[in-house]
C-alpha cells in the first residue's frame, strides 16, 4: 500500500498537530499525546462448534488515561486494523475531555465477522478477549462498551468473564448493559436531549427565544426523535424532518409549515424511523425529496443521520435564515463547508460537543454501577443537562475569547485538559 493512502490514524494525528500548534505544546507533550500510551495486541483461541479451534486477533488501545480510566468500545470487524483502533481511541480521549468527564480514551476490537460465527462462538471470542486482558482492564483502569457489531449481549458475556476472573461483582467494568443488569435509565434519550441542551444554550447566547425558532432535522432515528421532542418542549417548532424510505430506496423530507406533531408522526413510523409517506400525506404533510431538509427556511438545522451531509455543494442550499447547525451525527460537515459556514457566521455546534450526551450517559452508567445504586431517569437527565450545559459554556467562552469557531474551541479545551493532566501527574 502506498504511503499516501488514506490512514485514519494519520488523519487524527494531523488534526491533533494543528491544535497542539495553536496551544504551543512542547514537543514531549505532543509526542506523548500523538500516540497511545498502551497498545495490546493478542491472540484469542476459540473452540468452534465443530470442535476445531480458530485463532482470532484482538486489540486494545489505551490512548490516554491521565484524567481517568480509559473508555471506549469494542468492535468486531473482519478487517480491523490497529491504526483504525488508534484513531478511534484518540477521538474518545478528546470527547471525554470536551464534556469534562473523568475518563480517558480507549478502543478495542477483534478481527472477525460475526456473520461467520454462531452465538456460542461469539461468546467464546468475548470471554477470550477478557481472559487475555483481565489484568489490564477493569472499572478503575479501562472500561469497554459496545461498538460496531457488538451489543449488550456481548457486554454481559465479557462482564461475566471478568467477574469470574476477578472473583467479585464489578458491574462498572463495562457499559452498555441492559437496564436491570447494570444499565442506566435515560440512555435512549441521552444523545438527542444532549443535542438540544447545547442548542438551547446556543440560542441563549445568540439572544434568540426558543419559541421564536423553527428547525429542520435530517434523519428520524433515536437521536432525531428525542431531539425533536425536547426542542418542541422548550418552545421550538420543527417543520421538516427527512428519513429513509426502505421500499423506495430513497429518502424523503416531510414538511408541515405549522410544525410537525412528533407523536402523530411516530404513529406512522416503522422501527427504523421510516415514515409512511401515504399516511403522512393524509395527515397534511408535504412529501419532498430527501435532500430538501437542508434548504428549509428555518433557524436551526440538525443533521442527525449520516456523515458528510453538509458539503461544499450542499452548503449553498442552506437558507440565509439559518443561525445554528447542531451536529447530532458524527462528522456531518466537511472542512470545506465548515469554513464557508464560519464565514457566513452560521453557528456550528461541533459533534465533539453536540452529540456527547451518549458518552456522558455511559459515564453515568459506570458511576452508578460502581456504587451499585441506580438513579431514576429524571436524575440521569438532570445530571446530563448540567454536564452538557457546563461543557457548552466552557467551549463557547473559549471560542469567544480566542475568536475561534466552536469546533476548534472544543478541540482546544479537550487537548488542553488532557495535556494539563499529564503534566500535573508529572508524566511529561
Amino acid at each position: 500500500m502506498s504511503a499516501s493512502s488514506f490512514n485514519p490514524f494519520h488523519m487524527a494525528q494531523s488534526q491533533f498537530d494543528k491544535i497542539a500548534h495553536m496551544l504551543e505544546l512542547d514537543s514531549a507533550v505532543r509526542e506523548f499525546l500523538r500516540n497511545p500510551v498502551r497498545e495490546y495486541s493478542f491472540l484469542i483461541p476459540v473452540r468452534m462448534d465443530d470442535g476445531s479451534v480458530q485463532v482470532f486477533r484482538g486489540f486494545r488501545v489505551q490512548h490516554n488515561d491521565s484524567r481517568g480510566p480509559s473508555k471506549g468500545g469494542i468492535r468486531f470487524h473482519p478487517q480491523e486494523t490497529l491504526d483504525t483502533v488508534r484513531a478511534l481511541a484518540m477521538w474518545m480521549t478528546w470527547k471525554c475531555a470536551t464534556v469534562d468527564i473523568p475518563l480517558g480514551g480507549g478502543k478495542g476490537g477483534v478481527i472477525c465477522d460475526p456473520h461467520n460465527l454462531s452465538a456460542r462462538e461469539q461468546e467464546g471470542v468475548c470471554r477470550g478477549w477478557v481472559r487475555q486482558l483481565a489484568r489490564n482492564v477493569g472499572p478503575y483502569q479501562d472500561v469497554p462498551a459496545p461498538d460496531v457489531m457488538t451489543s449488550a449481549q456481548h457486554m454481559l458475556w465479557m462482564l461475566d468473564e471478568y467477574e469470574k476472573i476477578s472473583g467479585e461483582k464489578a458491574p462498572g467494568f463495562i457499559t452498555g448493559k441492559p437496564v436491570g443488569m447494570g444499565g442506566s435509565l435515560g440512555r435512549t434519550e441521552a444523545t438527542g436531549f444532549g443535542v438540544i441542551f447545547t442548542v438551547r444554550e446556543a440560542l441563549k447566547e445568540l439572544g434568540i427565544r426558543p419559541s421564536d425558532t423553527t428547525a429542520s432535522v435530517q434523519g428520524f432515528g433515536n437521536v432525531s426523535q428525542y431531539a425533536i421532542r425536547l426542542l418542541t418542549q422548550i418552545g421550538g417548532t420543527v417543520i421538516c424532518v427527512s428519513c429513509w424510505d426502505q421500499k423506495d430506496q430513497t429518502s424523503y423530507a416531510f414538511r408541515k409549515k405549522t410544525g410537525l406533531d412528533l407523536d402523530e408522526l411516530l404513529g406512522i413510523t416503522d422501527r427504523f424511523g421510516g415514515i409512511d409517506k401515504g399516511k403522512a400525506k393524509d395527515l397534511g404533510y408535504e412529501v419532498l425529496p430527501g435532500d430538501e431538509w437542508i434548504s428549509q427556511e428555518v433557524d436551526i438545522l440538525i443533521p442527525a443521520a449520516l456523515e458528510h451531509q453538509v458539503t461544499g455543494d450542499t452548503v449553498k442550499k442552506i437558507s440565509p435564515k439559518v443561525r445554528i447547525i447542531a451536529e447530532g451525527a458524527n462528522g456531518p460537515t466537511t472542512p470545506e463547508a465548515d469554513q464557508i459556514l464560519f464565514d457566513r457566521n452560521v453557528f456550528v455546534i461541533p459533534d465533539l460537543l453536540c452529540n456527547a450526551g451518549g458518552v456522558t450517559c455511559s459515564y453515568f452508567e459506570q458511576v452508578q454501577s460502581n456504587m451499585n445504586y441506580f438513579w431514576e431517569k429524571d436524575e440521569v437527565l438532570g445530571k446530563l443537562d448540567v454536564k452538557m450545559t457546563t461543557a457548552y459554556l466552557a467551549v463557547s467562552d473559549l471560542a469567544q475569547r480566542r475568536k475561534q469557531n466552536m469546533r476548534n474551541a472544543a478541540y482546544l479545551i479537550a487537548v488542553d485538559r488532557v495535556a494539563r493532566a499529564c503534566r500535573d501527574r508529572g508524566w511529561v
Partner: protein
Amino acid sequence: MNDSQESFDQMLAALRERAKELNCLYAVEELLGNPKIGLEDVIDGILAAIPPGWQYPDHCEAKIIIDGTEYASPGFVETLWFQSADIVAQDQTIGRIRVYYTQQMPVADDGPFLKEETRLIKTIADRIGHYIHHTRMRQVYHEWEAAKKDRRGKDHGDWRTILDLLIHTDKNLYTRMSHKMLNQLCWSGIREAEELLERSDLYRKSDAEELMSDSNRPYQKRSYSFPMELGEETFRIAAEHLSDEDIMGRIQKWMQEDKLGFLVRAVERNLSLPEVADAIRRYHHISSKEDELSKPSRAGVRVSLIRRFLSDQLQYIRIAKEYLGIKDFYDLLQYIIFAAESHGRLGGKSAGLYLASQILKREALNNPDLGTVKTPKTWHVTSDMQLNFMHYNNLDEIVEQKYKEISQVRFEYPYIVHTCKNSRFPPELTQGLSVALDDMGERPLIVRSSSVLEDRVGAAFSGKYKSLFLANQGSKQDRLAALQDAIAEVYASMFGPDPIEYRSERGLLDFAEEMGIMIQEVVGTKIGKYFLPSFAGVAFSRNEFRWSPRIQREDGLIRMVPGLGTRAVDRLSDDYPIMFSPGQPGLRVNVSVDEILRYSPRWVDVINLETNDFETVDAAELFAQSGDHIPGASQIVSVLENEQVRRLSLADTEVNKNDLVVTFAGLMENKKFVKQMHAILQTLEEKMGNPVDIEFAHDGSDLYLLQCRPQSHADNSAPVPIPKDLPEERVIFTANRFVSNGLVPDISHIVYVDPERYSALPNRELLGEVGRVVSKLNKMLPKRQFILMGPGRWGSRGDIKLGVNVTYSDINNTAVLIEIARKQGNYTPDLSFGTHFFQDLVEARIRYLPLYPDERGNVFNERFLTHSANILGHLLPEHSGLEDTVRVIDVTQSAHGSVLRILMNADLDEAVGVLSRPSSERPIVLDSDGSAVPMASHTHWHWRLHMAERLARQIDPERFGVKGFYVFGSTKNGTAGPGSDIDLLVHFVGTQEQREQLEHWLRGWSLCLDELNYLRTGYRHDGLLDVHIVTDEDIRRKTSYAVKIGAVTDAARELPIGGRAESPPTS
C-alpha cells in the same frame, strides 16, 4: 300424422323386444339358480329359453359347447346367420354359445341381430361361465373336506391331495404348476427332470444350441402346451429330490400367486382407472400382506400402479417402487376423484408429494431426527377430468389456444377464465367434489394445479399455474360452488399467456398437457376471524445463497414466515422472510440488532374466515392481539427491549405491539425443528437422487409437508455448463469458490473499482466519493446489464477503505455484485459475501460472486479491466478525477461488439466471465409493416426500435417544434427485454404551447404502445415511453440527458423525423 303413427309403432316394437330379452334373461337366471338340477338340464333349459328372447323366435335356434361337448336344440341345423359368445371360467375359454337364424332375416345392427341381442348373448355366456366355475369350486370344496378327513393319520403327502383335487377342478392350474415344478427341477440341475423335459418334446437341446448360436434366423417357435400326463412324472421326480415341506411350500406359493394374478393382469392391460381400482380393492380384501406375491410380480404390479396413477418418468418409478406398496395405492384411492373411463394420472405435484411423504414415513424408522412429518389431507382429481370438463361444456377448441399468437392468447385469456367459471361441471366430478367436501368439512382449502407437464419438465414449470385459497365456510352448496369456481379458474390457467409462452419457448407446445387438481386442507389454527398456520415456508436441500464461507451448499436453506407460506415462496420487495441454513443454524444472516429488526418479516398472509378472503395483516399487530392463541408464538416472536432482542417469555403479560419482532429465535434454540428440517432435506435429496425443494407448514405442534419437487432452477438459476476450451483472451475472470448457479447473459458495461488504486486513495473524502460515483453509475447504466467489481467488502461503513461505501440503493440495478480479494502480503482479506445487504440481494435476485485473483488456477484479466477505454469521464465529468480508480468499460465497444457473459455452476464450484456474442443477435425476419414480429425474446428490442422509428417519422417537426429525435438505452443497444421501456430523447426548439402539445401527443403514444406491449408480453407500465426533452441550452451545457447526443459511448441514435428524410430500413 302418418309419420308419427309409424314412429309410435316402432317405439312399441322396440319396447316389446326389450321385454322379450328380459324374459329370456330371467328364464336363464332361474335355471342357473336352481341347485337341484344338473348341468345338462340347465343347458337344455337355456337352449329352450333363448329363441323367445330374440327378435324372430320362430326362426331362431341355439347351440352351446362346453369342454368340447356340444348341446343343441332338437333338430338343430347349422346356418350362415349366427352370433356367438365365448364362455369363460377362471379366465379360460371353456366353450361358447351360438344363436342361429334358420333363414335370412332383415339386416339390423349386427347382421340380422340387434345390438341388444349381442349384449344378451354375452350376458348369458358370462352367467354360464360363472355357473360352471361355481359348480366346480363347490365340488373342490367337498373333495377337500373329504381329503382332510382322509388325510388324518398320514404324515406327509398333503401336497398330493391338493394336486389330486386340482386335477379334478382346475386342470389349467394343475398343468401350470407341473410346468413350474419341472422348470424348477431343471434349473436345480436334476438330470431326470431334464430328460423328462427333453422327452416331453417341449424343449430340445438343439433349441438351446440354436438360441445360443448367434444365428440371425428367427428362432422357430414350437407349440407350447404342457401335456397333462407329464405332471405325474414331474411330481414323482420332485418327491425324490425335494422334501415334502418344500414341495408343499412351493405349491402354496404358486397357488397364491395364481389367485392374485388378476391384479397383475388388471394393471398390465390398459384398463380404466375404475377397473384398476376395483382390482386393487379386491386384492386388498383377499390379501392383506403384499409378500404373498413373488418379488418380481410385486415389483411389476407396483411399477404398473405407479405408472398408472402417478408418473411414467423412469427415475420417479425407480425410486417410487421402493417406497410405494399396493396397500398405499389402496389408501390413496380413497381420495381420488375420477370418471368412469378415466385413464388420467394425478400430475407432477401430487406424485412428488405422495412419494416424499412415503419416503419420510419409512425412513423415520431409521432416523429419529425425522420425527413425524404429516401431510395435510389431500383429495386428487385425475388429469383427464379437465378434458372431461371441457368436453362436457363443448370447450374443446380452447385446447388449440396454445397455437395462437401470444397477443391473442393474452387478449382472450380473461374470456376463457370467464367461460370456464361459467361452465357446468360433469356430474361425476361434482359428485366426487361433494364427497371430498363432506370429508374435509369446513376446513379452509387450497386448490393447487398438478399438471402432467410439471411432472415432465420439473419444477421450473410449476408456479406458472394457479393455486387458490378457499376459506370454505358456509353452507355445503356455497362451499361446493366456491370449490368448483376455484377449480375452473385453475383449469383456465392452463390457457394463460405465461405458461403458453413458456411452453412455446421450450418447444413444449405440442405436448398433450393435462392438469390434475389437488384439493388440500390448509394447515393451521383458527385465530379469531383468521385462519393461519403458525408458520410456513420453503426449504432447499442445496443452499444457493451462502452468506458465510463456512456454509456449504449441502447445509441447505430455509425461508420461512409466520402465517401462510406465500410470503416465503415469493420474493417480495418490501418484506423479508427469515432465512437460515439447517446444517449451520448458528450462522445467521442477520447478526446485529439493527439487522435483525430490519430484515424481520413485517406482514402475515392469512385467510379471513368472515370475508372468505385471502388477506395480509401486520405481523406485530397480529401477535400483540392474538399471540396467546397462536400455537408456538413464543417460538416465533421476540421482544425488543432496551435496544436488545430477547425471547418472548410467559412473564411478559403486556407487550407493546411496537416491541414485537418476528425472529423465530425460540424455534432455532429448540434444536428439534432445525434437526428435523435438516434430516428431511438430506433424506429426500438422498432418496430422490437429486436436490429437492419443499414447501412446509407448521401448526404449532406438527410439521406438514405440502410439496416436494426437484430443486427448482427458475429465472436463469440452473447450473450452467462451463466450457473448457474457451479462448484465453476472451476470459475476463474465473472463480472457484462459493459459486452459486446461474447465467448472466448480456452484460454491456463493467464498473471496475481497482483494488490497488482504491486502497491508495489518500483521504476519506475521496474514498467516499467512489461510493457516490458508483451510486450515480447505478442510475445511469442500463439496469441489470452492468456488473460492479470492487475490492473487499461492498457496503463498508466505518472503515470504508475495506470496501466501497454504498448502501443497497446505490447498487440495486446491478446484475452481479463482485468482490475481489487481492492478496495483501501473505494474507487474503475476508470478503463480505454481501452481508451488508444480503437479504436485499436475494430478494432482488442480484447475484453475488467472490473472486480470488491470486489463487492458483484462476484467471483475472487485469489487462482488459485496466487497459480498456474508460468512459467515466464522459459519463460523469465532475468525477473524472477518479478515473484511475473507477473504470467504466463499455464492453461492446472495447470488445468489438461482444458482451460479457457470466456462467456460474455451483455443482462444480466454478464460474467464468467470458466475452461472447450478444444473445439478442440472431437473424430475425420482419414484416414490411412490422405488424407480425415473431414473438421470441430477442425481438423485444427490435419491436421497440421499429416503433421508435415509426414515431419519429410520424412526428410533425413544424407543429411540435422538434429538431431532433433520438433513441438510446436498451432499445438502441438491442438489449431491451419484455419489460423495458423505450428511452427517447427529443431535441425541442419550440414554444411552451408546442411543448405541451408535444408532451400530450407522446403521452398518447406511450399509453398505446404500453397496451400493445402488454398484449405481447404481459408487462404493464404506466406508459412505455420514457421521454427526455432537451433544449439547445441543455445540449450546449451538456446537462442531464443532453450528454447522450454525440456521446463517446452509448450515444443516443438519431432517427429521421417527419418527412425530412426517406424512411430508413427497419432492420
